[in-house]
């Protein structure tokens, strides 16, 4: 895999790396599905745990660990406690992680919700359940492929 040529993105993948994805979803079945579809992934069941892995908790430790480990965050929208939208905002607000693409998934097709997420900087909004074609489209987008 080559680095994207877009100069506006500072997110770069090494040629030999498979992107490491952080998947966040409160539903066990959906986590299993994402895990299978995105081979190199870590799964967390809620926003706070995801933030912990990313090194974005208020303690602020290990910020570099999170940055070097995770290349993509894919999160469910509807989660108890912290929604995927709130998680997106926290990631985009952080100086260390804000360049990491965040994909939002939802089972509900609500245009205002979709726009809100895209405006906040979500890479993509995907309707659940996640399919292989979604992953292909996402990979293409992230790699700046011509489809």
């Amino acid at each position, binding site marked *: 895999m080559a680095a994207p040529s877009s100069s506006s993105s500072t997110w770069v993948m090494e040629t030999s790396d498979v992107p490491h994805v952080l998947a966040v979803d*409160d*539903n066990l*079945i959906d986590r299993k599905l994402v895990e*299978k579809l995105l081979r190199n992934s870590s799964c967390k069941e809620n926003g706070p745990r995801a933030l912990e892995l990313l090194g974005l908790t208020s303690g602020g430790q290990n910020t570099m660990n999170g940055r070097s480990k995770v290349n993509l965050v894919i999160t469910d929208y509807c989660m108890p406690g912290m929604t995927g939208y709130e998680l997106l905002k926290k990631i985009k607000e952080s100086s260390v992680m804000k360049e990491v693409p965040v994909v939002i998934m939802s089972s509900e097709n609500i245009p205002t919700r979709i726009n809100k997420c895209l405006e906040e900087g979500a890479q993509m909004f995907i309707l659940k*359940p996640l399919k292989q074609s979604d992953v292909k489209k996402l990979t293409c987008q992230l790699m700046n492929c011509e489809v």
Partner: protein
Amino acid sequence: MDTNHSRRQLAAMKQSLFDQGLLDEQFIQLEELQDDANPNFVEEIVTLHYRDSSRLISSIEQALKERNLDFNKLDTLMHQFKGSSSSIGAKKVKAECNLFREYCRAGNAEGCMRSFQQLKKEHAALRKKLEAYFQVSRV
């Protein structure tokens, strides 16, 4: 060797589940994820789903026993149930979930109870059929 026979039987069973509107495209998506590294992926996911959904059914059942129904709580529980069902391609069950949620939003207690009974029936029926399906697939 009866593998040809069971393969045909399996295909027929699957076709029947689709024809009856019990399964949708998502089930095929799951099958496409099955490979040599995960030869029983579909069965594993489905088994997980039934474990997960049994818990949700109990919670919903409890919530429906309350004197004053908490429609928000019921809707949230059903949202989870629907998501899980949708992820395995349970088409008819998903439709029943949607109906239940409509009743929740309308604050219609009787509608909720009725559709929940129907939902449990559909859920149990599909479970049985899928168990039979996987049994044949293991032959």
